[in-house]
């Protein structure tokens, strides 16, 4: 019987052999159980090594890695701005009525808000944990429950029902963070007077890509990015600055 080197058996297990050699190995495997076992071992090793590192690809990507890919495209600030404004115009047209800004709506009681949204989106699309994430307090919308906890404790880019996009110091010297809830509501909240005041919230457009890689900033609606631009003083916080802010409970 023809004997095969370990390298050939390995290449067979990896699907790397040409047709002729592949057939020859298969024929030999049928007759020789020991040979078949060695091939199985190569396959098992490949599976084990892949499985050992597979979870890494499921982790949330730290924002510092995605950051340069977003910033480096700024070749000329003016052209970028012009393009963004054009995009925003288009987005506004497309999402007319889908946008609501909390200052405008803030005066409405939460119940009415839910009613309006239910009418607008259909009950099926209504963020079911609305009451759990946002509450109206003296006419101002304040994050609570899961959203408040995430804003207080979660670092940008980390996973969970609520994802935090960018954290930054605003021109009014308060900390602000963009977020996306499990119901695909994205927005911006700023820590003012001991509470996370929701500045703006937008229902993200349609299709959720469950299980697929998503990048918090890439999926942020333009309105939220716009709101960040209007408020930000300097650069977004890096992981270290975020940690320090968490420890100080986001108070200056």
């Amino acid at each position, binding site marked *: 019987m023809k004997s095969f080197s370990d390298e050939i058996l*390995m290449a067979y297990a990896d699907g790397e052999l040409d047709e002729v050699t592949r057939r020859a190995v298969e024929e030999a495997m049928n007759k020789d159980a020991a040979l078949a076992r060695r091939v199985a071992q190569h396959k098992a090793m490949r599976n084990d090594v892949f499985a050992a*590192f*597979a979870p890494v690809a499921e982790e949330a*990507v730290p924002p510092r*890695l*995605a950051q340069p*890919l977003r910033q480096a*495209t700024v070749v000329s600030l003016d*052209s970028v701005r012009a393009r963004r404004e054009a995009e925003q115009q288009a987005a506004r047209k497309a999402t007319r009525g889908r946008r609501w800004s909390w200052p405008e709506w803030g005066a409405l009681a939460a119940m009415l808000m839910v009613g309006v949204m239910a009418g607008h989106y259909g009950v099926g699309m209504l963020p079911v944990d609305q009451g759990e994430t946002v509450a109206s307090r003296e006419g101002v919308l304040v994050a609570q429950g899961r959203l408040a906890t995430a804003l207080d404790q979660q670092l940008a880019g980390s996973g969970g029902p609520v994802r935090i996009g960018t954290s930054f110091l605003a021109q009014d010297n308060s900390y602000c963070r963009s977020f996306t809830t499990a119901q695909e509501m994205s927005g911006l909240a700023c820590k003012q007077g001991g509470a996370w005041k929701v500045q703006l919230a937008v229902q993200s457009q349609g299709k959720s890509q469950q299980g697929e890689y998503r990048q918090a900033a*890439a999926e942020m609606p333009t309105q939220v990015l716009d709101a960040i631009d209007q408020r930000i003083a300097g650069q977004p916080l890096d992981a270290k600055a975020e940690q320090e802010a968490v420890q100080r409970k986001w108070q200056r």
Partner: protein
Amino acid sequence: MMDNDSALHEEIATLLPRLRRFARTLAWHREDADDLVQLSVERAILHSSSYQPGTRLDSWLFRIIKNAWIDEVRSRTRRSELFAPEEEGEHVGDDFAEAHQQRMAVQKAVSLLSEEHRLVVGLVLVEGLPYKEAAEVLEIPVGTLTSRLARARTALQEMLSEQARTV
């Protein structure tokens, strides 16, 4: 030019999870691996004109990571800290813990391979590159890649059965 660049950057962004995974096969520590990815992404942006459209973007990035690893990052990581004590199987019992332990054992074995063995294992077994593609990333002949891969697997096998005996 700008639009080409931003399209490329977009594509690189979608590959970040895989770049991190590949980097983790080289550098054990998450922070070290992410430093490696960050440096490589910055280099990729800087040298984006050297990417040839139509070729595999992942391979191009893997090569940048490999070079960055060999040139700079490797020397800064501390092998003595490869395994913090709490990272070695502290949970025993249910299936989840067992699977976790198995993964840790394999990761540990990979981390103990030689540099060149870790590179071939990362490219072929973890990232699933065909031999030819992996050989091009490493700038070595396919024959060399094949024999390295075979030796790396043998070494892993030995380490893992060794571990199984001592546990």
